[in-house]
């Protein structure tokens, strides 16, 4: 049969984000494919160089729409590393709560997103309803539902509002009680299993070759390679949690790990709420009013474990009022670009969007 040229995305229910996959197909089988990024390119790295340290907090969460907090955290950690700031103890715990809620919300969303490529939209509705409750909690804490601009270098912007613990607990209990339901609807559902079992393999060697991190890697190499464990930031070393792993990296295993992480996040938030001390939540980056804050000369690379893997900020300061250079390492860079080029070919056309979805490719963080 003749080779045909096809595009997946940017408008496609199975495409996560505003990118498109350019494919050459022969019958059902993809022969060659490339990711076409750039549709969402906003020049953030340049923009950050041209914004004051404090102003950058309005820009950073926008790097990744669904998971802004990891960006804020990595940026804040990079600044703190260069400026050698001691973040107040309470702020560490608040940050962890925020980050885990973010993880919950994105895991739910991408689990629901599984409904896109597989055609089971009920999953999406459930996931979004729960995500909505998380966003309500975020709104109460940070003032915004999506772009929180809450974790800032030196701590967090405001203390938790009174009584928010109640909201959190009731949400966590509710989610936990419906966890099995979620599984039954999704990955225990035989029609879904038929799609995701034994397909879209990501073998160990490929993981190392591409440099895939996060669940993609853990579900292949069977080791708890999670940044929260191997180089704990914030106060993850004071919290007990497991890192779900697997040694058979098909799409099923990845989704399974994701769902198990939901349980872990629930437990982490509960522990944080118990262990959280009282006290200040923020220290200024330096003396003076915010527009004249400076960060000493230096380089740093700070990274956090996002839902898709290692999310890092490389930062250079020349001692001035603006960052000299900020580089963003999006977690989906390796699988999204090189992965699509090298390992998408050979799969079936209808699995392409499943491939993108379960590998965790998020185009905004590739584009910046």
């Amino acid at each position, binding site marked *: 049969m003749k080779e045909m040229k096809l595009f997946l995305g940017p408008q496609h229910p199975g495409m996560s984000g505003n990118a498109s996959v350019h494919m050459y197909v022969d019958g059902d089988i993809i022969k060659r494919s490339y990711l076409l990024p*750039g549709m969402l*390119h906003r020049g953030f790295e340049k923009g950050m160089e*041209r914004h004051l340290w404090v102003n950058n907090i309005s820009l950073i969460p926008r790097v990744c729409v669904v998971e802004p907090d990891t960006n804020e955290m990595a940026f804040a950690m990079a600044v703190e590393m260069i400026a050698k700031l001691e973040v107040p103890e309470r702020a560490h715990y608040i940050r962890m709560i925020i980050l885990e809620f973010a993880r919950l919300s994105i895991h739910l969303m991408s689990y629901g997103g599984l409904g896109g490529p597989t055609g089971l939209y009920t999953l999406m509705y459930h996931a979004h309803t729960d995500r909505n409750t998380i966003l309500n909690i975020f709104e109460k804490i940070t003032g915004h539902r999506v772009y929180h601009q809450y974790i800032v270098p030196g701590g967090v912007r405001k203390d938790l509002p009174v009584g928010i613990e109640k909201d959190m607990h009731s949400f966590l209990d509710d989610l936990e009680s419906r966890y099995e339901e979620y599984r039954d609807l999704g990955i225990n559902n035989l029609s879904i299993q038929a799609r995701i079992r034994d397909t879209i393999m990501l073998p160990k060697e490929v993981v*190392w070759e591409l*440099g895939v991190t996060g669940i993609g890697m853990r579900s292949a190499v069977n080791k708890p390679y999670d940044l929260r464990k191997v180089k704990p930031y914030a106060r993850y070393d004071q919290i007990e949690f497991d890192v779900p792993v697997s040694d058979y990296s098909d799409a099923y295993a990845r989704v399974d790990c994701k769902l198990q992480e939901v349980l872990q996040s629930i437990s982490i938030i509960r522990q944080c709420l118990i262990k959280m001390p009282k006290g200040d939540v923020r220290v200024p980056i330096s003396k003076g009013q915010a527009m004249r804050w400076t960060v000493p000369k230096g380089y740093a*690379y700070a990274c956090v474990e996002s839902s898709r893997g290692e999310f*890092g900020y*490389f930062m250079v300061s020349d001692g001035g009022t603006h960052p000299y250079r900020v*580089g963003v*390492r999006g977690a989906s860079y390796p699988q999204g670009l090189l992965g699509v080029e090298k390992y998408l070919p050979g799969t079936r056309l209808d699995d392409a969007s499943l491939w993108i979805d379960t590998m965790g490719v998020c185009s905004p963080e590739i584009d910046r």
Partner: protein
Amino acid sequence: MTNSMSNTEFVTNLVENQYKVLKTEVLDQYQIAFEVKKEDVHSILSLLKTSGWIQLSYLSAVDWIKDNEFEVVYIVFNWDKAVHIQIRTRLDRESASINSVLPIYPGCKYYEREAHEFFGIKFPGNPDYEKQLILENWDDIPPLRKDFDPRQYSDKKFSHMEYKNDFVNKDGKVSKQEAREKRFSDADKLRTGGKK
């Protein structure tokens, strides 16, 4: 896992014993940075890869326009000995080029392509580095260079939204705001030195 502090020491010994390192910075127990000469980059990276630093986390560049140099940064990571290593090297800005690390870290393919697109650094050895990746039909100098001014570019390309609202109320008097602004900008002109 072994004590983390010894991890950074391990790396320092590993690299410094064999290569001339221009500068070593230990940022914390999980991160260390080496400034090295351009010729050493590839062999250091090979050494690190064989010692367990199998993951290329990040590759990019910094424009030091005052020194007329680019600085290329490679960040590698070892999941068993949790240390991020920055390898940095300076290139001449006019003819910036460094051999690709594709044979060592295949994952660098797109990073190098992006660095070329945004800085104009050449990576011979990478078959695709010159292809455009993110910026479609770009018609200016590579945008992450310090001499690229995005404000100017957008003023040139896009129109500006002017509001027609009139909130100003001068009460029939002469503007004081303008006078203030003029004085301020005049005073600014008296400045000569200092850093911006």
